[in-house]
């Protein structure tokens, strides 16, 4: 079942961030959201993840199981990359499977290290593996490739493409090339900037 965002509005301290926004996220497909900074992309994701409630409108068809890559890494810093993924997968996935994914994304030498000792790009990749391996019906990625160098970005993009097949994926990005790699242009949602009169 597709996720329908119907006339959703949200404001903070009197400042409107989303105004009567509507969109449909097709089931088992990748949808890309684009728009300039401050247009309410992250707010929309927070509404979809259940971290905020809309002031008006409704979101229909939201699944129970959601995973996400946030703008920040949001990793448990004293724990290893493996443990951070295990935090969300529990025992539903074997250690070997998680290790395979971490190796695939280029973290073979850093699997057992506390994530606080990893670079920003490595931490980013841990959070991507965490989102892709969690048992979820909707994967939300908020600027997932931010801070990655071009080579790493290319391999991580391939990883996300391969693991997202058949899943409902929602990706926020500013980069048209990233968006084009993930979904055809006619499925992009371009969010308008609200004027603050």
């Amino acid at each position, binding site marked *: 079942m597709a996720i329908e965002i119907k006339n959703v509005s949200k404001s903070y301290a009197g400042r409107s961030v989303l105004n009567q926004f509507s969109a449909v996220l097709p089931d088992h497909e990748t949808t890309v959201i684009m728009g300039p900074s401050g247009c309410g992309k992250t707010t929309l994701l927070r509404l979809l*993840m*259940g*971290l905020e409630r809309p002031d008006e409108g409704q979101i229909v068809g939201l699944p*129970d*199981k*959601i*995973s*996400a890559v*946030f703008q*920040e890494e*949001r990793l*448990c*810093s*004293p*724990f290893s990359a493996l*443990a951070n993924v295990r*935090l*969300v997968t*529990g025992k539903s996935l074997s250690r070997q499977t998680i290790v395979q994914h971490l190796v695939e994304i280029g973290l073979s030498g850093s699997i057992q290290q*506390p994530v606080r000792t990893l670079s920003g790009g490595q931490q980013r990749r841990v959070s991507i593996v*965490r989102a892709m391996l*969690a048992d979820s019906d909707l994967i939300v990625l908020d600027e997932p490739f931010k801070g990655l160098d071009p080579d790493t970005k290319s391999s991580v993009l391939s990883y996300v493409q391969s693991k997202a097949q058949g899943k409902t994926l929602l990706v926020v990005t500013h980069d048209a090339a990233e968006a084009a790699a993930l979904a055809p242009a006619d499925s992009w949602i371009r969010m308008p900037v609200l004027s603050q009169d």
Partner: protein
Amino acid sequence: MTTTGKLPSWAKALSIFLALWVWQLAAWLVQSHLLLVSPWTALVRLATLSGQGAFWLAVSHSLGRILLGFALALVTGIFLAVVSARWHLVDTLLWPYMAAIKATPVASFIILCLIWLDSRSLSVFISFLMVLPIIYTSVLQGIRSTDIQLLEMAAVFKVSRWRRLVYIYLPQLRPFLVASCTVATGLAWKAGIAAEVIGIPSGTIGERLYQAKVYLDTGDLFAWTIVVVGLSILVDKAIVQGLDRLFAFVESR
């Protein structure tokens, strides 16, 4: 002093040597064993006492009771902090008790408790009372300063409560718990021994300190004081190391 503010070992050793030298000089100037014994005299008396069975019995009684009070306060303080973090009303209701315990002179509690309790339980209760607000306040502060972004992540991924505790809350609480245990250990010993000196339960360090006062035996007073300071430092180090190992074990899983 290093940039981290922690004294290097050689500096600590040097400062202890200088303090002993000042003590020795003061004892030499005073020239009265009644007023001030030298470090050497205190150490000789300590060596003599440690050869007696009653010494170890007194040490084990006081150590056991103060540690029991500390452990009970640790468990109760953590439990109350968790409940208060969940329900603000509990924090509000507990506030007057915690404020009163912190502000009331320990001697008042000791005298009051002498009426309620037998002298053997006194040091357990007084140590408990002194440690409880420190652990409670610190752990509550730790819980409240938990990274909201990690809690949101856990909410989105529907992480179980047990895993939230292990992965998010415990690492957050670590510095708060270690710091509060260090402060509380010293206080538990000071208050616990003070309770024993006033309550005079038989076969305890407090009783031996009381006898030293009655018989004006300054050598014994200093020897037993060295024992209390040494035990306090040892217990503090053991607790901090125990907590460090516990957290390291949890984080290595």
